[in-house]
């Protein structure tokens, strides 16, 4: 129906304020519902590791010994910091300071990228130890560990990757003046996603690397 197509092509900024307020709520609600799904999905992957770990504690201990906690601790701090810079950026946009927001968000994106690089370094180390995704390629010492470890951490890594891309998009839209202290739902929804990825890492860090 032509009328509807017309309406859809309007810029969001042109919507009257009331509708805008309704939408805000809608978007955040939708994001939370999406995150509810993600909770379940990550729980299966993490749970798969946990159940298996209960059966094979020595193998995990061996991995911890060879790996150390140095690298992964750095990574954890990177993500925590990125979450912090993310909320600080949002705080800036709440006081109409777009340039300030851009700075903090740039930091968030950079921290996300460094996180991925370090994860790659860690994966290479693990591969060196003979921990691989497929069963046949794995060293017998670590048989079956690789897949359970990688499926969860790599799935999280993909989320970081998506988050970085999204962060850049948000920055671009901020550049174009899409956000202000009155309209920053787009930033907030991205924030929900990014913090969620951080929360997942908090859990993964403790369960996969420390316990």
């Amino acid at each position, binding site marked *: 129906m032509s009328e509807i197509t017309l309406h859809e092509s309007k810029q969001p900024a042109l919507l009257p*304020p*009331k509708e805008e*307020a*309704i939408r*805000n*709520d809608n978007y*955040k*609600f939708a994001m*939370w*519902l999406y*995150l*509810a*799904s993600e*909770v*379940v999905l990550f*729980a299966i992957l993490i*749970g798969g590791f*946990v*159940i298996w770990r*209960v*059966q094979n504690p020595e193998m995990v201990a061996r991995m911890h010994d060879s790996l150390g*906690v140095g690298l992964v*601790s750095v990574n*954890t*701090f990177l993500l*925590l*910091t990125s*979450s*912090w810079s*993310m*909320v*600080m950026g949002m*705080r800036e946009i*709440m*006081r109409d300071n777009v340039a300030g927001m851009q700075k903090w968000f740039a930091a968030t994106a950079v921290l996300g990228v460094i996180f991925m690089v370090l994860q790659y370094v860690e994966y290479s180390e693990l591969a060196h130890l003979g921990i691989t995704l497929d069963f046949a390629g794995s060293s017998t010492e670590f048989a079956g560990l690789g897949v359970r470890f990688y499926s969860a951490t790599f799935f999280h890594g993909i989320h970081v990757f998506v988050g970085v891309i999204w962060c850049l998009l948000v920055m671009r839209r901020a550049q174009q003046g899409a956000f202000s202290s009155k309209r920053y739902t787009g930033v*907030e929804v991205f*924030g*929900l996603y990014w*913090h*969620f990825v*951080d*929360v997942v890492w*908090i*859990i993964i*860090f*403790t*369960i996969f*690397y*420390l*316990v």
Partner: protein
Amino acid sequence: MSDHTHNHAPTTETAHETHHDDAHAEVMAETTTLLGRTLPFPLYTVIFGILGILTVAEIVIAELFSSWVKIVVLLAFAIAKAALVVIYYMHLKTDSKIFTLVLLLPVFIVTISLMFLLIVPYGSAY
């Protein structure tokens, strides 16, 4: 009527405005009161500090101790950290309560299933 304020489209606007007032004051302040002391940092930074301290504590505990107590303590720390992020950074504290419900439901359901899978004897003993 009070329970409708957040549910119905035409009133959403006002609901939205008011909650932002609450959130604003707390988030925008340059100082934060913690345990009766006033710290010279915004709320978000204080939370970041706590998260950092908890993480360092976790690493120390993990390196120094080894018993089941350690596992319980570490898990408690992780949950505390996750809760801080969710409550403050993700604004559950000030946002609609229905979001909290949306978060707790999957956590509840997942806990049931994982608990079951954990108590099931492994392998041939099914």
